[in-house]
């Protein structure tokens, strides 16, 4: 959405006026179509969020959405319609998600679901929303299974998927360190295997040559120290660290303290400076790499970035309770923009079918809070909006992006 400022002359203004008049006339001539939850004045969306429970830190995403739509409505809404977002607490408990989503669909009759959060919570409603043919849009989870238009044509994810992430690491290694001897540590569950699959698919034929050791851990394990020593003993010089925060911190510390000091790739789940790198000791994580796809609010290179300034303005004016250091607030802003783009594309055809068609018809949509040059694309066979990322290196204080955007089509 980059705009080049242009001087407005009387002629262009006049021309624009005529164009708007004709367009408006055409829009009125074409009768508006409405599905459940949509009318000439309102569009109703629904979501579940963990405002309570173990994942309540993510509740800020739903709160930001509310404020964003408030701002949007004050400015006239989308195509003259106000957006109402009904955001309900599910406490990150799948049975509660089912109950709340049924309320949204059957009682509140929302047009679409937007950013329901959590892999287990979305798994619980996956079949239901597809049977009910309710658009299930831009889910806030990284699992790869959400992009399955053949079996689940009403569900479309948002995040850079775990497989795509693994794929990006593999592509970078193939290009920049083709002789790497890779040791992989991954959490033994769907998430860990999802990232692992991305790495292996990305390496392709080189897997056998490059991956020298794979080890796993269970969420119930007290530490991953012995796994790190096993990897060190295998002679690996590159460490792909697919762990959740607690184990991520342990792995960073042990890989350094044991004297191994490999090239360290930490997956995005554990890339948090506050909850992983500081507990592990920032000096032990210098040089570690991860992937990013949107701008980090703490990164000084974006200090004067116009999109970042716009976002800070929003945070200051509409969402004072939100933490301007929390990257979830950037993420939530981007997803809200994407939702608005889908609704804009729908025009006056606000049926559930058309909402889904437009969600699967994003063409080069750019949010300026995504990394420079990134765009979202979806199609009837591609339900992954985000398929690019950039690697970032930890300099002891923050993640610094480097190199080109890397694209993937792993899913």
């Amino acid at each position, binding site marked *: 959405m980059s705009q080049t400022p242009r001087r407005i002359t009387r002629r262009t203004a006049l021309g624009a006026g005529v164009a708007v008049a004709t367009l408006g006339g055409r829009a009125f001539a074409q009768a508006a179509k409405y599905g459940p939850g949509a009318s000439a004045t309102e569009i109703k969306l629904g979501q579940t969020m963990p405002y309570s429970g173990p994942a309540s830190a993510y*509740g800020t995403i739903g709160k930001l959405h509310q404020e964003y739509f408030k701002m949007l409505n004050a400015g006239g809404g989308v195509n003259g319609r106000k957006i109402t977002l009904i955001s309900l607490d599910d*406490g990150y408990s*799948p049975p509660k998600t089912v109950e709340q989503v*049924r309320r949204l669909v*059957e009682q509140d009759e929302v047009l679409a679901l937007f950013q329901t959060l959590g892999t*287990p919570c979305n*798994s*619980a409603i996956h079949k239901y929303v597809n049977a009910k043919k309710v658009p299930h849009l831009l889910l806030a989870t990284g699992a790869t299974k959400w992009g399955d238009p053949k079996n689940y044509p009403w569900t479309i994810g948002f995040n850079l998927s775990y497989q795509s992430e693994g794929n990006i690491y593999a592509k970078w290694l193939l290009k920049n360190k083709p002789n790497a001897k890779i040791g992989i540590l991954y959490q033994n569950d769907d*998430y860990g295997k999802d990232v692992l699959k991305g790495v292996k698919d990305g390496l392709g034929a080189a897997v056998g040559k490059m991956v020298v050791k794979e080890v796993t851990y269970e*969420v119930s394990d007290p530490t991953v120290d012995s796994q790190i020593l096993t990897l060190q003993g295998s002679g690996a010089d590159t460490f792909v660290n697919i762990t959740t925060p607690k184990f991520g911190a342990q792995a960073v510390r042990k890989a350094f303290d044991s004297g191994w000091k490999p090239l360290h790739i930490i997956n995005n789940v554990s890339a948090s400076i506050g909850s992983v790198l500081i507990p592990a000791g920032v000096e032990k994580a210098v040089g570690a790499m991860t992937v990013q796809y949107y701008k980090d609010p703490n990164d000084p290179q974006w200090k004067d970035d116009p999109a970042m300034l716009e976002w800070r303005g929003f945070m200051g004016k509409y969402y004072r309770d939100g933490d301007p250091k929390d990257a979830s607030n950037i993420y939530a802003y981007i997803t809200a923009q994407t939702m608005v783009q889908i609704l804009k594309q729908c025009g006056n055809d606000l049926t559930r079918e058309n909402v889904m068609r437009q969600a699967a018809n994003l063409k080069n949509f750019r949010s300026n809070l995504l990394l420079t040059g990134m765009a979202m694309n979806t199609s009837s066979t591609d339900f992954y909006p985000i398929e690019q990322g950039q690697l970032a290196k930890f300099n002891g204080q923050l993640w610094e992006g480097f190199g080109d955007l890397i694209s993937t089509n792993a899913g």
Partner: protein
Amino acid sequence: MNPTLDRRKLAGVVVLLVLACALPFVIANYRVFQLTLVLAYSIALLGLNMLTGFNGQISLGHGAFYAIGAYAAAILMDKAAFPYWATIPIAGAVCFVAGFLFGLPALRLEGLYLALATFALGVAMPQILKHKSIEEWTGGVQGIVIVKPDAPAWTGFSQDQWLYFFTLAWVAILFFLGWNLLRGRIGRAMVAIRDQPIAAQAMGVNTAMVKSLTFGVSALYTGIAGALGAIAVQFVAPDSFSFFLSITLLTGVVIGGLASISGAFFGALFIQFIPNIADEISKAAPWAIYGIVLIAFMYVMPTGVAGFVRIVRGRLARRRGAPALR
């Protein structure tokens, strides 16, 4: 406790049953689904109340039995293609054995120590369900998606209405059996052990056996509730049965009324609907609202909702000059 059922109470139960049968035809399917969950919870609460209210053993881990029941039903339907109705008694039997076996060693533990042992069970359960050795059956973190049973064609019911009546039937059976058990010899033995364990033993009550059996029956009820809940929700996953579920169940028992059968329904309504109301009031701190409501209930109704209802009915009866109901 209701030792006998006089005419008026019987009439009350019949009226309630008729109301319960009429309800799903006047409210939306989504509400019917919520009430199905309330019914399932009420069975679990009655089970926990037998153990905690009547027998005086505190359990902080009944969410684990709820989970076992739910998983038993889900696995039987998903892997062994059992019809949904056949899974309920099996889930109950599995939980009875699990509860009885857990109850045997737990006998040596009294009061807070038992609470801690059951706490351990509740905390461990989600992780056990994720363990890779049983992942083939449990589906690991992904859980299991269950196909929702259709109503038999002759009824003309929607799926939700059918499940509601299916669950209601189980409620009727289990509450009748529970009432029968609790008002009889075994019920008296359970209460005696709670109030005067030494005297009970002196009177010839086999405390060890009664306590273990109570644990088993309690787990059986909770397991059946878990199976019914899982079929209604159509999904089980470890995250569905976090430790908080155990606390929720205990909250329901205390709010409903310890050692009260009807309290199970009040408790179930509380744990189903109060979190939703709290969420409506505040997105920023739903649990704070929940906590305030909880404390308010404890102050206004120290003997639980059932106890409160009893007091109110007694007062009304006295005012009318009729003999006070117990």
